[in-house]
């Protein structure tokens, strides 16, 4: 996965984001810290996953806290 990720800069931005949807949240969080561009692209994804996670479980308070 690491080797594949190194080729990300060659991809169009839409494909980068689409590919990111297939990565685990922990790896996304890691990549989001690598540089400013990836932070902008990837940081919302773990937050979105976490929010849907709480919404699916009916956790009103946790969803609002996020």
């Amino acid at each position, binding site marked *: 996965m690491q080797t594949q990720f190194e080729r990300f800069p060659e991809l169009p931005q839409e494909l980068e984001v689409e590919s990111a*949807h*297939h990565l685990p949240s922990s790896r996304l969080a890691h990549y989001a810290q690598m540089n400013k561009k990836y932070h902008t692209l990837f940081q*919302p*994804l773990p*937050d*979105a*996953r976490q*929010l*849907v*996670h*709480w*919404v*699916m*479980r*009916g956790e*009103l308070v946790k*969803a*609002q806290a996020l």
Partner: protein
Amino acid sequence: MVQRSRVTDCSGRKFQSISAFEYALWALDKHMWTALLNYIPKGHAHSSLWGQLLTQYQQLKTQGVTYQLHGKTIIEQHFDFQHTIIDALQTQVNLYQAPGYKDFDILDTQWRDGVGGAQKLLPMHVVAEYCSNEPFHPVPEFIAPPQPTNGLRIGKKNEPWFSVKCKLGEGFAACKGGRAYAARTPNVLGWLITQGAPRDLAAMTKLYSVRTQDLIMLQAQLEDHLAPNSASTSTASFKKQ
């Protein structure tokens, strides 16, 4: 709130791309979408977000939500109350009320597999209504959010509805009726004591009706945030499935 991601819910539905707001709409979880919307700060600075929310609402209405369950691809506007829990409970009630000889093996099997299986598909807010301390008889208005409880009563203990070791849909179905909790009920005799099946059926039918109406009314609320000085003339209609 509008950012989409790939998720699997407690019933095993796999959504390839869904936002928190879309999931709340699909589940007909009024209290959740209300909580999410209440969190948006007031003011014109967030009009684009309200626009995105309205767009997602319209997409749900016109295109539905796609997910995979047990290898099948399903597209629907919202959780299918009618063809899951309502039909299963109605079948159970019809079987019991049919005149003549009753085959209790068939009744018990339909109760455990049919009703229990449908209960494993319920979105969490419906589970919360089952597990709340407000009885299903008389039928509630389903206006206030249900009070959180400890889950499904099994003997003297409580278990989470969706826990791995919970045998809901295999060894029993959940029944509430006029009680202040949902309890493990393995067969027809279990629900006959409290008339639980017809009472749960009435409650689920009412909940479906109320939440469908809530979803229709939401369109006007979203539109009002985009044009705060104009009266809404929404005529949105979600067809019941």
